[in-house]
């Protein structure tokens, strides 16, 4: 089986890193990591490869430093890594990103493509389905369990729904997006890390693709970020420090004044 895992390099801390004075995002010194959901994608790829034999190729689109994220996946046990990186791709939104990925992945002819549920920086969960569409294959999102049929032609998946789960069968090839609950990603072994250092990472530039230039980068991106601001801080709550009896009265008065009660 040929498996492709799509990954993204993201900043490690997605939580509070706001400069209290300037209200801008502080990202200096924040290390980059493999998007946590994508680690589950890589892990699942490795497990399927180990059980059914095959190869796992990790693919990312990003700046040159995203190589580091690919090396980690190689250290976990991926066989090959491809970095799609070019100035032309700058400003890609999810649709342009998915288009670019689709051009590279089409050439690989995989049986299974695994993506994380979403990236922790953008949280859109859109690239997976948009990629499946542009590859013209089925998608199954929010997957929490994966089985492959013995003849390796079908996949059986447990998909989380809004009210429970469903079991879905589908012929390969297919694209799945996976949940954290699916597995526990392994730590790279020392041997894996050393091996990964020696491996070559294939760099794909725009010129290597037969791409429609109108579908790449900022030009190929229908969405446009026009403004960025820091969200309003929530108002501080009111603390009532009185004897229980008086405090109760105070709170009831407050609720009545605010017409909540």
């Amino acid at each position, binding site marked *: 089986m040929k498996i492709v895992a799509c990954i993204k390099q993201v*900043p490690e801390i*997605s*939580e509070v*890193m706001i*400069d209290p004075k*300037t209200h*801008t*995002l*502080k*990202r*200096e010194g924040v290390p980059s990591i493999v998007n946590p959901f994508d680690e589950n994608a890589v892990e699942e790829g490795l497990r399927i490869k180990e059980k059914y034999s095959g190869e796992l190729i990790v693919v990312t689109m990003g*700046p040159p430093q995203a190589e580091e994220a690919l090396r980690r996946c190689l250290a976990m046990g991926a066989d090959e890594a491809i970095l799609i*990186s*070019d100035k032309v791709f*700058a*400003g*890609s*939104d999810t*649709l342009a990103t*998915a288009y670019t990925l689709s051009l590279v992945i089409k050439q690989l002819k995989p049986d299974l493509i695994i993506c994380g549920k979403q990236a922790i*920086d953008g*949280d*859109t*969960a*859109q690239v997976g*389905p*948009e990629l*499946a*569409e542009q590859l013209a294959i*089925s*998608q*199954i*999102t*929010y997957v929490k369990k994966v089985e492959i049929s013995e003849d390796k032609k079908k996949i*059986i998946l447990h998909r989380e*729904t*809004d*009210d*429970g*789960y*469903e*079991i*879905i*069968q*589908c*012929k390969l090839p297919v694209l799945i997006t996976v949940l954290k609950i699916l597995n526990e990603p392994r730590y790279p072994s020392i041997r894996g890390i050393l091996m990964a250092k020696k491996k070559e990472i294939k760099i794909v530039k725009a010129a290597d693709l037969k791409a429609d230039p*109108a579908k790449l*980068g*900022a*030009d190929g*991106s*229908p*969405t*446009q*970020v*026009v*403004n*960025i*601001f*820091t969200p309003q801080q929530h108002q501080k709550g009111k603390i009532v420090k009185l004897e229980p009896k008086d405090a109760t009265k105070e709170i009831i008065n407050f609720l009545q004044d605010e017409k909540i009660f």
Partner: protein
Amino acid sequence: MAEITVDINKCNGCGKCVNLCPFNQIIIVDRLAIIEVGCTMCGVCQELCPTGAITIKRERLSNEDYSNYRGIWVFIEQLQGKIKPVSLELLGKAKELANKLNQEIAVVLAGDKISHLVKDLSSYEIHKIYLVESQALKRYTTDAYTQVLVSLVSQYKPNILLIGATNTGRDLAPRVAARLRVGLTADCTDLDITDEGYLLQTRPAFGGNIMAQILCKYTRPQMATVRSNVFKKFIPCSNSQPPEIIKIEAKLNPLSIRTKITSHKGNY
């Protein structure tokens, strides 16, 4: 394609842009701002550069006239004949947007044996209900629902299409957007109309640390997903005009539905 340039005669290397850049893609080298390749052309630096040294040139994707695209659509998500609350919340927002644009509200109601829901929706000040019934739509599948929605949109050309950001909605919306090759903004926390009549979509990014405002100027419909409990539930109005019902025959080839649900467990 879009290009970002720094005017070396204007840039004084003050470094304000370095701190402003949400994506950490600007460095100062020899008192000059250098834009790195991860730039998303968000335009914050251009907006706020004290010397006006940064320019982003954007070309339009298309010159097509979008005035033919009219109406605010809401995809009504239902499960086993019950409407999801998020869909009703979206109707409230849709009404606001419809008033600002002076356009109609229409909904897409798809499923199997769900015509009784038409009555439930009739008091929500909706102008049109596109009712699509088929056994193949009994449970949600990406393939079937994408076909239904894409064909309706292509035929009736809505200006705006809103979908609840449930697991179903977040599976469906990007598939539809990719097929139509239009923009889609996930998990909006606010929606408004700009002075030029565009849908202004506000959404959190970086774990909610920043808010981004997004436009899809050159593609239609303008698509957005919204999580539940973000907008207030729309209070139905008993004397609202009954909506026009447009029954659509779903032409679904079973072979075009590539996934098969063998069983499901849930509250229903």
